[in-house]
């Protein structure tokens, strides 16, 4: 694999006002000349982007799951020298070793497959189809079931680990992503990156889905009140303490409160016999934040918890005995008390860009951390909580415009007190399923649903009121003023960021047939989408046809319309037409997120047919229309 495949990237920024010649610099002095008006010829380097890592059963090899290069890299566990690269499916997100250590299962999230790697030959021996966006995979100890968390189908598939045949799917929460087995193997725990549906303008809620391994059924659900996004879980070796990393947004109050202790609290939820009822504790301090906790590890002696924090680019270290003493003497959850963390957070160790997965050596003396956006692995001495070394993975040494933009997207360094980054609301460069109150429109005014950004290129203007004509405005002055409040981007950084956001591709659409053709129902829906006459043979005005506003390949004519959804808290009913890319999975809907489902857009919020002529449709026909929309 060359590692330096070069592609031409055409960049045509829409804003004439942004007509400056830009240069993207890297640490090695590479310059990519950029002209906002004339376009840019740049290069797309093939980075590894490691997200998870594991030891082989013998402990002699280190497996590194590389998301961007779509491979598992096998390293010598002692020297970190690369032994082999094993190609897997697109955007692998999670992997695990079989109980006997003879197989490595890889969840390929964009191919909807599981790669099965023989750990002796280091070859892929099977590729099994699964459901939508598999994100992690775990085999139970007895080898009876293989559990796969599917982010888009919101379920856990139960497979036969011998054949890969799917036996059933269990209803998980929204955005099921990370599976962890309990130390005794009796249960598996699943966290979710998107919040479960809740009534409009109420606190978000996620859950930990607990599966009874023996019966392969959902045995319990641990509610995570106010937590919208869950990431990794770790257990103490004795099984008495479970720790789940999560994001606790404060989206019900105006974002002005960024200056007043946080738009998010970065938290851990503790559960298990050591704590009794689940307890949420903050990792943040009053003026220092542990942004986007992701990977978690507990030392074998249960003395320390290590948490990677992607946005703040560090590892937070917690003293477990002090933590347990604190929560026992202060019953209840403490997500609002940023003074609490001083009682148990003992260190913060800077690492690389967007640190993700963590791995303890068997003796617990070293912690390995993968830095996704640096292609490197940090090694931490767990006894001293000091970084001892960082070794790079093989690959490009230069930082491309895209990589720099992605680093900018994921870091929290620009925001006030380093509280948030773009990726706080655009989880894994997607969306968050939440609604926010951005105060420039007035406190409590213009509550807006967070729109997805995949395939956002050529969908300007941005914002629901169409107020931002292009990405540099959207990502630059607006973001600096209303989100970061502390530091602006320089022109080069802003260009990098805009280039990255424009480059985001759509994830695969799971509602289209493999050949791209439509089902009978979808065809009927397409006809309704494009119709010009209603069922009573009355002509439908052009501007009230679905296909007029939602025209083009991305489903937007990039103009604003009043579709009758203005609320008393809205300053205007005129709204930018949102793109339809992967609309099936990006709920809730409408500008303020008041429609939890696509159906509600028309069954509840379109009484006057202003959002398309739909009230002449039967339920069957509305279902057809929605089936078609899901293919967009």
């Amino acid at each position, binding site marked *: 694999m060359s590692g330096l495949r070069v592609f031409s990237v055409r960049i045509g920024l829409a804003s004439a006002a942004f007509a400056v010649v830009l240069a993207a610099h890297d640490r090695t002095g590479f310059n990519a000349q950029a002209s906002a008006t004339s376009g840019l010829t740049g290069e797309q380097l093939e980075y590894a982007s490691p997200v998870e890592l594991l030891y082989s059963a013998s402990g002699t090899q280190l497996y590194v799951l590389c998301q961007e290069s779509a491979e598992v890299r096998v390293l010598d566990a002692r020297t970190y020298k690369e032994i082999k690269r094993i190609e897997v499916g697109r955007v692998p997100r999670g992997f695990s070793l079989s109980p006997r250590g003879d197989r490595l299962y890889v969840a390929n999230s964009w191919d909807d497959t599981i790669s099965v790697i023989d750990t002796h030959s280091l070859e892929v021996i099977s590729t099994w189809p699964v459901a939508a966006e598999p994100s992690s995979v775990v085999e139970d100890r007895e080898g009876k079931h293989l559990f796969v968390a599917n982010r888009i189908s919101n379920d856990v598939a139960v497979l036969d680990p011998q054949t890969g045949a799917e036996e059933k799917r*269990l*209803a998980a929460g929204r955005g099921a992503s990370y599976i962890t087995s309990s130390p005794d193997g009796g249960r598996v725990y699943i966290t979710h990156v998107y919040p479960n549906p809740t009534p409009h303008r109420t606190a978000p809620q996620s859950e930990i889905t607990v599966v009874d391994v023996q*019966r392969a059924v959902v*045995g319990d659900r641990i509610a995570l009140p106010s937590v919208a996004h869950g990431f990794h879980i770790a257990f103490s070796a004795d099984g008495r303490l479970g720790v789940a990393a999560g994001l606790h947004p404060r989206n019900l109050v105006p974002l002005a409160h960024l200056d007043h202790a946080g738009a998010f609290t970065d938290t851990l939820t503790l559960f298990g016999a050591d704590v009794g009822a689940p307890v949420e504790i903050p990792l943040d301090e009053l003026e220092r934040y542990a942004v986007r906790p992701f990977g978690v590890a507990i030392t074998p002696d249960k003395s320390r918890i290590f948490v990677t924090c992607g946005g703040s680019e560090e590892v937070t270290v917690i003293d477990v005995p002090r933590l347990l003493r604190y929560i026992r003497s202060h019953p209840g959850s403490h997500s609002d008390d940023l003074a609490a963390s001083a009682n148990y957070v003992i260190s913060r160790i800077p690492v690389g860009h967007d640190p993700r997965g963590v791995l303890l050596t068997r003796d617990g003396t070293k912690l390995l951390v993968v830095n996704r956006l640096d292609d490197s692995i940090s090694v931490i001495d767990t006894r001293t909580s000091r970084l001892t070394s960082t070794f790079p993975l093989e690959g490009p040494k230069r930082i491309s415009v895209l990589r720099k933009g992605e680093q900018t997207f994921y870091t929290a360094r620009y925001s006030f007190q380093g509280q948030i980054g773009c990726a706080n609301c655009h989880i894994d460069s997607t969306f968050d399923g939440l609604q926010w109150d951005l105060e420039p429109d007035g406190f409590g005014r213009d509550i807006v649903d967070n729109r997805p950004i995949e395939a956002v290129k050529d969908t300007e203007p941005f914002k629901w009121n169409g107020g931002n004509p292009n990405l540099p405005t959207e990502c630059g002055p607006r973001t600096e003023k209303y989100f970061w409040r502390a530091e602006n981007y320089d022109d080069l950084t802003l260009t990098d960021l805009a280039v990255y956001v424009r480059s985001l591709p759509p994830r695969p659409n799971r509602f289209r047939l493999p050949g791209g053709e439509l089902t009978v*129902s979808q065809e009927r829906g397409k006809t309704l989408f494009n119709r010009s006459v209603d069922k009573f043979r009355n002509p439908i005005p052009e501007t009230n046809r679905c296909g007029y506003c939602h025209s083009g390949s991305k489903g937007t004519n990039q103009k604003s319309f009043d579709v009758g959804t203005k609320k008393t808290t809205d300053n205007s009913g005129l709204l930018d037409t949102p793109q339809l890319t992967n609309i099936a999975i990006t709920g809730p809907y409408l500008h303020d997120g008041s429609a939890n489902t696509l*159906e509600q857009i028309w*069954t509840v919020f379109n009484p006057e047919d202003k959002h398309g002529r739909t009230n002449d449709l039967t*339920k069957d026909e509305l279902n057809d229309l929605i089936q078609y929309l899901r293919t967009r």
Partner: protein
Amino acid sequence: MKALRTIAIVTSMLMLSIAAISTAQTGYASPKLHKTASVSIKGQLPSMPRFRFENFTTANGLPDDHVFNVLVDGGRIWAATENGLGLFENGKWKTYNTKDGLAHRAVLSLALDKRTGDVWAGTMGGLSRISGGRIDTFTQLNSGLSNDVVYGVSVEGEHVWVATAAGASMLDLHTNQWSLFNERNTPMFEIWVYGVSATPSKVYFAVWGSGILEYDQQKKTWDKYDDPDGETEMVLFKDQGLIHEITTSVSYLEKEKILWAATYFGDSHYDGRRWHNFLTKDSGLPSNFTNVVKGVDANRAWFGTDKGLAYYDGVNWAVYRPSLTTGQPEMTIRDKNGNVTPVEVATAPAHNYVLGIDFQGSDIWVATAKGLSHGIHQP
């Protein structure tokens, strides 16, 4: 089916004479009561299951005395009541209601997804899934469900089949897509669907006023079973087709390929070739007004009527109820000759109006208009 209708017309004249002397279907035909004391003939009585009934009402924790359905889930019992979904576990009742996310407080139907352990509850306000303590609700406004009044629900594989007041719906759990079945795409003349029984091969719907609808899962085709005489008030052709168009419940046994159907005017048994119908006047059915039927096998079935719980073993009948006259516990056995013998019992189901039946080993659970009854099998 169509052939049956032809035969029915040809023989109509013959059957008219029978009809002329038949009693109204809604009338309760007096049984030929055996005058001998039950004890003295006990040894000659057909062996029919006997139970000691323990009854649950609001007095001992049931959410409401109007119980529309009951579901056995291993050691857990779910009760669909007019005021919430009751769960009986470890000797205690827990109630789920709208504040917990239940679609509506009046729960009409229940089904267990045996693979996942999820329970599906059809209500007067939508369909709810109870999974690991979380309740997800599907309504006609927030999903593709055709109507919020969900009379019946049945889970087969990854498909949830739903009987509603406006046609049938099917939710594909893999794709989260809904399919609707109504007068526009099936031979369903009426769309008031009361019951559904889904198996891997066939799905049957009891359509109020439109007989029984059959969906062949392999062929993706529909068929329909009607009352051949089309008469609403009398039976002209008794064993030549479905007993009546106003069907209320259906139970299909895939292994035996046997269909049991209940109507408000008698019940039917269909083996794929022949129909056999049951009326009070010529069977041990305590009432033609039947709310629910649950087939056990090709020959045996349980019936929930407005005049008690009935069991048919292929030859003999047993009826369990509070006496229609005294209210005292009563069990009667009707043998193949039509002899009805009372059996001395100390307990009976909570009420004669039976709406739901399920089995727990050799025990039976009975949903009635005045409470939920647990029939503990007596050796």
